[in-house]
């Protein structure tokens, strides 16, 4: 239960970050789009996207310095699982036009039906996926 407050505070920071991008730059903070645009747009068009990602990385360094546990991964997912998972996340977010930040935070916040549907769908399939992974790792 002592994880709840940091989670809410972290969420508020995420909401503030998205609000900042909206107020100043008029943009949705859809991270899957920010990343995939690096592949499809010109370098000049992507300056702000590169800087956003640099911001993520600098924040990552700050987190790492402050708390060495920040990136500890006890999920026990093997290399094959990560390759498949990465590919599906990349392909799925691009096809579905967004991820947890774009649809889940920004889209839901503005009551976009598309985003609400997308969010419900990816959560449901995430739940199914974890169940399958649990069964599979039990069987092996």
């Amino acid at each position, binding site marked *: 239960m002592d*994880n709840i407050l940091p*989670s*809410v505070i972290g*969420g*508020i920071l*995420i909401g503030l*970050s*998205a*609000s900042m*991008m909206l*107020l*100043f730059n*008029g*943009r*949705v903070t859809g*991270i*899957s789009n920010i*990343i995939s645009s690096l*592949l499809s747009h010109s370098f000049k068009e992507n300056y*702000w996207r590169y*800087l*956003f990602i640099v911001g*993520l*990385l600098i*924040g990552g360094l700050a*987190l790492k310095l402050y708390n060495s546990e920040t*990136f500890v*991964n006890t999920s026990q*997912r093997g*290399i094959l*699982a990560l390759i*498949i*998972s*990465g*590919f*599906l*996340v*990349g*392909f*799925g*977010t691009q*096809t*579905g*036009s967004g*991820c*947890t*930040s774009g649809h*889940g*935070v920004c889209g*839901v916040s*503005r009551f976009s039906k598309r985003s609400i*549907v997308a969010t419900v769908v*990816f*959560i*449901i*399939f995430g*739940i*199914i*996926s974890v169940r399958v*992974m649990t069964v599979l790792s039990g069987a092996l």
Partner: protein
Amino acid sequence: MKKEIVALVSGFIFSIGLGISGMTQPQNVIGFLDLQNWNPQLLFVMLGAVLTHAILYRIIRKRNTPMFDSVWHITTKKEINAKLIIGSAVFGIGWGIGGFCPGPAITSLVSFELNVYIFVISMLVGMYVSLKSSGAVK
């Protein structure tokens, strides 16, 4: 220049939010998606984020334009179609397998863990394949 600085600061705040809420730890994400052994952290992250952004969104959108741009860059797409649903389903499946979505994955690159690099490279390949098949890249 101003827009780029906003993006930099915004990215920084975003990743701090991810880190302090535990979302950079895949086991916490998988725990949220695991109904048998439920970890509610992600729910509270979403609540914090959506409540904050929903309120500010309405206030901000009262303006005619953003502060550093002349137009709003918000999609006007409304249609709930197969692409949206299938894409979201595929994303959800991948999310549950790895416990990573794009934001935390990029942020985690600073850990120099092999897992993260494998995930991110695979993610970029997946994005590229999707872009290519839709004709967005040649």
